[in-house]
C-alpha cells in the first residue's frame, strides 16, 4: 500500500469498523455451527417451560414474552465469551489494539458483528417460540420488534463484561454475574412492551425507552469497551 492511499489512521473510524466487522462476520460464517448454538439453545430452553408449568395455552400466552426475553438473555450470555476470548488467547486482540485504527472503532465493529450473529438471529427466531406459546401474529410482531430494538443493548453491556473478564478465573460464570443485574431494565421494558400491547395499553413508551437505551449505548459503549480492552491488555 502506498503512502497516498493510507488514510490518516487516527481518524479512520469507518475503515477500522468495517475491517473488523468483515473479519468477524467471515469468521462467524466459517464456524456456522457454533453460531447456530445460541439459537438452538434459545429454542430448547424455551421449550422446557411448558413442560414445567403445564400446557395451558392461556397461561403460556401470558408468560410467553417474559420467557422469550429471559431465554434470549441466557442465549446471549452463552455467546459473550466468544467476542474476545479467542482473539485474546492468540494475541490478535493485542495486535488490534496496537494497530493504527482507533480501538473504539474496532470495538464497534466487534459489537456490530456480535449483534448480527446473535441478537439478530435470536430476534428472528423468537416467533418459533411465540407459536409454541400460543401468541397471535400481532403480538409476535411486537415481540420481534422489542427484541430487535432491545437486543443491541444486550450485546453492548455483554461486550463490556466480556472485555473486563478477559483472563480472569472462571470467565463465563463471572460474565453472567456481572451482566445479569444490568440486563434487568432491558428485560422489563422488552417484555413490558409485549405485555402492554396484549393488555391494549400503548406499548410505544416501552419500545421508545428501549430505543433510547440502544441509542445511548451506541454512543458510549465503543469507548467503554475500548477502555476495558486496554485494561485487559495492561
Amino acid at each position, binding site marked *: 500500500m502506498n503512502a497516498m492511499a493510507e488514510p490518516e489512521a487516527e481518524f479512520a473510524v469507518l475503515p477500522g469498523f468495517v475491517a473488523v466487522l468483515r473479519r468477524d462476520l467471515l469468521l462467524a460464517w466459517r464456524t456456522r455451527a457454533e453460531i447456530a448454538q445460541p439459537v438452538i439453545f434459545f429454542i430448547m430452553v424455551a421449550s422446557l417451560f411448558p413442560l414445567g408449568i403445564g400446557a395451558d395455552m392461556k397461561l403460556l400466552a401470558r408468560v410467553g414474552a417474559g420467557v422469550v426475553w429471559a431465554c434470549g438473555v441466557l442465549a446471549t450470555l452463552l455467546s459473550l465469551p466468544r467476542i474476545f476470548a479467542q482473539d485474546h488467547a492468540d494475541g490478535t486482540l493485542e495486535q488490534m489494539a496496537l494497530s493504527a485504527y482507533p480501538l473504539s472503532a474496532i470495538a464497534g465493529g466487534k459489537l456490530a458483528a456480535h449483534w448480527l450473529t446473535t441478537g439478530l438471529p435470536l430476534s428472528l427466531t423468537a416467533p418459533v417460540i411465540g407459536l409454541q406459546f400460543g401468541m397471535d401474529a400481532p403480538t409476535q410482531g411486537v415481540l420481534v420488534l422489542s427484541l430487535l430494538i432491545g437486543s443491541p443493548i444486550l450485546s453492548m453491556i455483554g461486550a463490556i463484561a466480556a472485555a473486563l*473478564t478477559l483472563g480472569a478465573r472462571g470467565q463465563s460464570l463471572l460474565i453472567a*454475574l456481572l451482566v445479569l*443485574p444490568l440486563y434487568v431494565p432491558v428485560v422489563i421494558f422488552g417484555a413490558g412492551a409485549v405485555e402492554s400491547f396484549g393488555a391494549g395499553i400503548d406499548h410505544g413508551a416501552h419500545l421508545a425507552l428501549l430505543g433510547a437505551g440502544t441509542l445511548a449505548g451506541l454512543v458510549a459503549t465503543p469507548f467503554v469497551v475500548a477502555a476495558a480492552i486496554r485494561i485487559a491488555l495492561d
Partner: protein
Amino acid sequence: MLFKYASPASFYPLAGKLAPVFAVIALVLTAVGLYQGFIIAPTDFQQGEVYRIIFIHVPSAWMGMFIYLVMAMYACLALVFNTRLSAMMMQALAPTGAIMTAIALWTGALWGKPTWGTYWAWDARMTSTLFLLFLYFGYMALDNAIEDRRRADKAGALLVLVGVVNVPIIYFSVRWWNTLHQGATVVPGSSKMADTMLAAMMVMTFAMWAYAIAVALWRVRGIILEREKNTAWVQELLDRP
C-alpha cells in the same frame, strides 16, 4: 495537602486515628437513634408498632445506594488519577455496601409480612434493591477473580461506573412502575412523617454513615498492609514492637 493522604503510607496512620472516632460517633448515635425510635416516637395509627423497623430499614437502604455512589466516585478517581488508594477504598467499601443492602432487603421482608401480608413481592424498588446487591456481588467477584492487582482495580472501577447507571433507575423506578411499595415518604420540604420519627430516622442514618466510615477505614488499613507488605515502611511498622 489532600494529595499527601492519597499515598497509602501516610493514609494508614490517619485511618488508624479516624476509625475509632467514627466508631464512637456511630455507637452514640445508634444509642440515641434507637432510643428515640423505639421509645419516644409515637405508635403509628395505621401500622402499629411494626413500623418501627423503618428506623433500621430506611437508613440501611439509603446507605446501600449511597455507598455504591461513593464507590463510583472512587472509581472515577482511580481511573482518572490512577491513585492506588482510591481503588483500595472501593474494595474496602464494597462489603459494607453489600451488607447494608442485604439488611435493607431483610428488614423490608420482615416489615412486609405483617403490613402487606407477604415477605416478598416483585415490586420495582425491592427488585432493584435486590439487583443492587447483585451488583455488589458482581464487583466483589470480579475483584477476586483477576490475579493482577492493578488490572483488578481498574476493571472493578470500570464495572462500578457502568453499574452506577443502575442506581438512578432504582430511585426513579418508584415513579416508573409505581406498584406495591409506598411512594417516597421523605421528600425535602414536604415530609409526611411525624417530627420525632423523622428525627430518629435521620439520627440512625448518620449512625450508619459513621459506622460505614469506621468499618471501611479499618478494612482499608488491612488492605494497605496486605498490598504494601513488601515495602520498607510496612516492614518497619511490623518490626516495631
